[in-house]
């Protein structure tokens, strides 16, 4: 590695000093230019609305309820964020969730030690993710088509495996993943928080995370600059498969059964959370923090509309309009 001759002298020039000084520019600037600004405002606004419209919105029990309800969608939405950040999409998550959960339940009922069965559940999710990624990266097929196909394949496999019936009768302690508590905090919430922390660190602090954003920003330039783009794509879809499988573990524990028909439409909920969280559907901009906010926002809406006693049919219409409004406010602001 050659060193610049002028580096030492240049480092003392006035411009250099002002550069280093500005690098720690205020947190105000950070928030103002951050993609999570609007989602955050939305979350606060909706929460305030709920505080006034309902009696016990801010109670610990209710908040934990909301968080537990959103946990499965929020966990799936982590992987979805990675995929959407690169400009892709993963439609297979709902079906893979059902397949992984059903197979795990079946194996446990068949006598396999739950630890192994749950590891296998994770492996199924990972396997589908890797497969999706390979088809997108190396076979150069559009993500929307690949995952539409694997969505059908996973759903079908789950139905074949179970004969179409829910599988129940697994060891009781598996329920801990869905219904357990640690210091009054539901286990799914803890899993969710830990998963988000890991995802945030990966995206913000590792080279791979930088590649995710770079890929979404300009795939061609990223490839030409020497980043192994195809490998990154496979890992990104693998993450989506893995977070889906983690959600499957929670779901299995929650329902104490494997439901081959579970997870229908979950891909849309996850996409909604990602997009509400400020991540650009075209890729390159966004964050998992935003996605968590988006998922919680959706959960609060559900919860609040329930508490207000609004007809469930009407609720879906309201949610649709709120998503449209949010995307409208958040579109291409620069």
């Amino acid at each position, binding site marked *: 590695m050659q060193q610049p001759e*002028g580096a030492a002298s240049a480092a003392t020039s006035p411009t250099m000093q002002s550069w280093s000084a500005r690098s720690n520019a205020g947190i105000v600037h950070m928030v103002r230019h951050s993609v999570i600004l609007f989602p955050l405002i939305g979350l606060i606004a909706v929460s305030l609305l709920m505080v006034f419209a309902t009696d016990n919105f801010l109670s610990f029990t209710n908040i934990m309820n909301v968080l537990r309800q959103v946990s499965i969608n929020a966990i799936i939405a982590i992987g979805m964020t990675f995929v959407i950040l690169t400009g892709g999409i993963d439609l297979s998550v709902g079906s893979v969730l059902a397949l992984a959960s059903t197979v795990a339940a079946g194996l446990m009922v068949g006598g396999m030690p739950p630890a192994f069965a749950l590891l296998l559940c994770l492996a199924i999710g990972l396997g589908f993710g890797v497969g999706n990624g390979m088809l997108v990266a190396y076979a150069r097929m559009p993500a929307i088509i690949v995952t539409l196909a694997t969505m059908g394949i996973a759903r079908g496999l789950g139905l074949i495996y179970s004969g179409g019936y829910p599988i129940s009768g697994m060891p009781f302690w598996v329920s801990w993943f869905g219904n357990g508590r640690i210091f009054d905090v539901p286990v799914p919430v803890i899993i969710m928080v830990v998963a988000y922390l890991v995802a945030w660190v990966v995206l913000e602090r*590792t*080279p791979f995370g930088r590649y995710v954003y770079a890929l979404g920003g300009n795939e061609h330039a990223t490839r030409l600059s*020497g980043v192994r783009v195809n490998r990154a794509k496979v890992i990104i879809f693998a993450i989506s498969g893995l977070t889906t499988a983690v959600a499957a573990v929670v779901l299995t524990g929650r329902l104490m059964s494997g439901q081959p028909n579970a997870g229908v439409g979950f891909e849309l909920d996850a996409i909604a959370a990602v997009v509400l969280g400020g991540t650009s559907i075209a890729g*390159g901009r966004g964050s998992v923090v935003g996605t968590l906010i988006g998922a919680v926002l959706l959960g609060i809406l559900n919860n609040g509309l329930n508490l207000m006693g609004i007809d469930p049919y009407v609720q879906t219409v309201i949610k649709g309009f709120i998503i449209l409004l949010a995307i409208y406010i958040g579109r291409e602001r620069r």
Partner: protein
Amino acid sequence: MSQLLSVKGVEKAFVGVKVLSGVDLEVGAGEIHALLGENGAGKSTLMKILCGVYSMDAGTIRIDGEEKHFSDYEAAVEAGIGIVFQEFSLIPHLTAVENIFLGREIYNGLGLLKRAEMRRHAMATLDRLKIDINLDVPIRHLSVAQQQFIEIAKALSLNARILILDEPTATLTPTEAEQLFAVMRELKRQGVGIIFISHHLDEIFEICDRITVLRDGNYVGTVDVAATDIDSLVEMMVGRRIAANFPPKPAINAARPVVLDVEEIQLERGGPVNAFSLREGEILGFAGLVGSGRTETALGVIGATRPHRCRLKVDGVARNFTNPADALECGIGLLPESRKEEGLITSFSVRDNVSINNLWKYTSHIFIDRAEEQRATIDVMGRVRMKAQGPQTQVATLSGGNQQKVVVARWLNHSVKILFFDEPTRGIDVGAKAEIYQIMRDMTKRGYSIVMISSELPEIVGMCDRVCVFREGKITQTLVGEAITPAEVMRYATAGEINAAA
């Protein structure tokens, strides 16, 4: 030969920068008139004025002696001007008939298409060209030449009497070019005036009657083909400019080791086979016309595309790159031609752009050391004298020159030794150009070896220690030292075969 088109004293400036000044052009009925000039000489601007896309600041356009003012493209078409651009405006999934009548379909009282009638009209036009084209298949199944004929037919069906062909042969095989010339001669016989833009002097001598030469937006002159030769044309095109603003070239040391030896590269099966080598510390130019295979060769070498055959050695060791990341591991990088599309990640800050391909340098265990990354970025920003608020500045807000410096900085920060610069100064101002030249020269002093692809002759002449001149995918000549002159480079780039025969 009656005067059909007469253009006088055209002036045009873009945001204060003069791009055309005092340009004349006259085309007679039944004349094929070549418009010649280097890249950036103003040919395209003049053509866009002629077809109403740009307005002119001063000057007159007369057709049949009558002064015309084109407010838009439709007005020019109305006046009898037809243009076939380099990039066709045809829809690949539609048939020839559908393309010719796109937007002005003939239909009956029920709003249904009169297909037979449109077909008859299309046939009649194509008959005029004396060519035979399958009218019933989507045009994507036709050859490039045939698609071009459809473009010409489309212009003729709009009653064009002046036809502008913008580098029509650039994408054609020699046989196809002959077919095009036959069509052009037929139109000439029918009294159509044709403006033919081409860089290939041999073609111009084959088909044209007169030649108008532009240089740096100025009118140089109009000559009869019969009364001129290649040497005087090249002289008219390049003038007697001397290269300014270039750092001095060091003495050539032929004893420096060869760092990159491309023994053989063939991009496509049956295509031309090239070989070149790069010595340590030199700037090797890839000169030639746009589309002559320079960029494609560079992309093939670094594995961004998959060449049909490629044998190369880096520091004497045979390598095989399937991916730019492989080339990077051997210390080879490329700064692409279009910064925004291929170079920068525009949503990223300066720092993130600079460090994208060398993050491992600041990565301990699995985490990026951001303080170290920041420090290193500030360091390279100083080395390229980048004018930016700081490492956190979004690159989208920078000027073209500073954006190019971001891309340069990315590689400066890396352990690469060999760099391909593809059009490194395109679209940046004079001051920044000089800085980029200085940076490149400094890099070679520190042991970098550079391949510079450029369409700007002064840059090739002013910067390069050796020059490979490309013509139609083939390296026709490698010039060294004093032999690198604008005229020599232009000669091999435009008229390789004629020269070889002479």
